[in-house]
């Protein structure tokens, strides 16, 4: 939020939430991710930046095994969340995804009411014992997604009837209602106007207090505004990964510098 204090932004070095080692992803014959090592801290916003097709979204989708739904995709390497290998045969991707929530590039509310959209996750995971509990969860999620005031009088109206920015905040509310430990966001603001983008960014900053947030973005300003750590991807390689302030003011790799200054990408 505070661009002017980029360099001295405080980074609480928390426990490592996600650690990835030697990750390779293949789409058929295409080698999309090449030997990526990264450690993502808890209660931190980590931004993945890089030009289109650099593999940042693909890597993000490895973290909750969404690549499993693509037939041609093959993931190698070691990804651990809280020390547990998520690609282990004993791990069920369904359980993993309940722990690692995801918000997509395009708002994708279900064609259901606003209430049912938010209650979807809690219902399938049995998080609420009573109707009152569920109402409470829905209200909390909508409040934290800064949508409660706009939505409280129309909870039974279809979620698809909201504006683009509201829809994206609804999708965020839907994701946090499931109480994940990690929230993955794949270019969550690319379909939004600047005002809605601002609201979502504020929200991301608040979410940091509870979650480890990983955000893929095309906007370097956005990465600078919301993240504490930034990873720069280029052609499937993780080129540089450091504190956001450092990446934007004093990049070590010439490719990072070229990208930051607008010469490539």
């Amino acid at each position, binding site marked *: 939020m505070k661009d002017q204090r980029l360099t001295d932004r405080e980074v609480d070095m928390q426990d490592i939430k996600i650690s990835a080692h030697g990750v390779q992803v293949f789409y058929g014959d295409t080698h999309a991710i090449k030997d990526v090592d990264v450690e993502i801290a808890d209660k931190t916003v980590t931004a993945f930046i890089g030009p289109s097709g650099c593999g940042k979204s693909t890597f993000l989708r490895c973290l909750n095994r969404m690549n499993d739904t693509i*037939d041609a995709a093959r993931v190698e390497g070691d990804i651990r969340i809280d020390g547990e290998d998520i690609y282990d045969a004993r791990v069920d991707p369904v*359980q*993993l995804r309940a722990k690692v929530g995801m918000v997509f590039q395009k708002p*994708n509310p279900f064609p259901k009411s606003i209430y049912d959209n938010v209650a979807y*996750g809690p219902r*399938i*995971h049995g998080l609420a014992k009573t109707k009152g509990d569920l109402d409470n969860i829905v209200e909390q999620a909508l409040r934290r997604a800064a949508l409660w005031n706009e939505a409280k009088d129309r909870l039974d109206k279809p979620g698809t009837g909201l504006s683009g920015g509201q829809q994206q905040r609804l999708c965020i509310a839907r994701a946090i209602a499931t109480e994940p430990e990690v929230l993955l966001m794949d270019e969550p603001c690319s379909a939004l106007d600047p005002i809605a983008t601002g609201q979502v960014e504020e929200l991301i900053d608040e979410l940091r207090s509870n979650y480890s947030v990983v955000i893929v973005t095309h906007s370097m300003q956005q990465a600078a505004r919301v993240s504490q750590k930034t990873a720069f991807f280029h052609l499937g390689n993780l080129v540089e990964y450091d504190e956001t302030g450092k990446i934007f003011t004093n990049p070590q790799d010439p490719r990072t510098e070229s990208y930051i200054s607008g010469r490539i990408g």
Partner: protein
Amino acid sequence: MSGLLTFPLALLVVLVLCIAGYLLGRRRAVGRVKGDTRALHSRPVHHGWHVVMATLIPSFAVLVLWAFLQGLVSSVYLGTTVADDLPELALPESQREGLEDEEIAVREGARRELFLGNVRVLNEAIYGAISSDVISLPEIEAWDAAETDVGGELRSAGQIAPIGVTPAMQEAALKLYGFERTLSAIGPLLVMLLAAIGFIWALSRIDGDFRARNVVERWVMGLLIFASTVAILTTLAILAAVTFPSITFFREYGLFDFLFGLTWAPAGDTVGVPEGPGGEYESLLGFLPLIWGTLYISLVALLVATPLGLLAAIYLSEFADRRVRAWVKPALEVLAGVPTIVYGLFALVTIGPFLQAVVGTTIMPNTVSVMTAGVVMGMMLVPFVSSLSDDVINAVPQAMRDGSLGLGATPSETITKVILPAALPGIVGAVVLAASRAIGETMIVVLAAGALSNVQGLEPNPFGAVVTVTTRIVAVLTGEASGFDSIDVLAVFALAFTLFFITLALNLLAQRIVRRYREQYE
């Protein structure tokens, strides 16, 4: 033979003119601007097509009109050549006694009609005999009907000719023959002349500034409009063809008695001549038992087709990998291509006896029944439901699946809680369309539902035989049925009319549902 050749010859000439016109038109257009085609308003091709159109359209229009009007014109001609005071048209004195003038006029009118009819048949016979080169025209002209048996001569020449041909008949027939020969000689001539005029006129108009493209494009648009209206006009024509007899029927029999009658028992009454003792029709033509049979079978068919088709669609769109899909989908579509008569045979020889063996003859006295027809019709509708449902399920955006899976939902939760609700309107549309096919289905029910000619009341037993609307239409129109003066035949039109509206309503409903569904994502 020469008479046969002229219209094909005219067509040939028109065709040659068209080809020549196209080539010449193009060349002339280029020539007018000395080879610099950019100076032309329209492309050379347009000029070519313009000549083709000017040659073809008027001449072809006349050709079609001629074919339609020839018969009409010659019958008007015949009416005017035969004098009203021809002695043999008058009613003989012996038959005039005790008759009113009006009655005499009616009878003389009938005699005249008979005379004209004989002349027409004779004319056909003369035409047939001459064109098959058996007898020449001078030979026929030389016959004197007072002495020669003209009809007999023509019959021995292999023609159908009336008995007792009089000199007046012979004279009228020969006149008609001559007139028709002239007509069919003028027709082709006129066609060729118009083609030639159009050809020359269009060629003469070609110039650098001439807007041939606009003319051609306007005609092409006309052609497109024509093509799109033909189907609509056909529907209207079908509607008109069943509506008018139906209205006559409703007026004659009573709309209420038809719609709510519980008995279907045609007795062959003539329209307007009720034969019952109280002046009512003996035929009982109640719609209810028939629509009951139709809806009962359709219901069974849908109960079979909807779950099977839907589950197949879910498997195909959500679980089947590409290789399985490449096999199963075409295989299902082959099922959709099986002619319904084959399904009917299958029902009759396989499913019917099987069901009977399972439930026993006390419940199921015949192999034909609601279940026999319904189950097989359901099979027929499975690919229909599955193919349409597969399409709508595939149309649910991938983002919905991702969203649900991303929240930790299982694939089955994703399908039942997100995808099916989202696709539901489309699926309902598919089922409604299937229902309208089931209601209109004919061959399966003709073979497998039962063929009683009389039914009373509504058969509740699903293993009992029923009669459907379509089977009755088939039976009355192909059976021993009398002509269009029978009330039973008129009733069939009313059946078709009602069926048309039920399926029309269902199709409109399905379209509305499907359209509402589309608006949601696009």
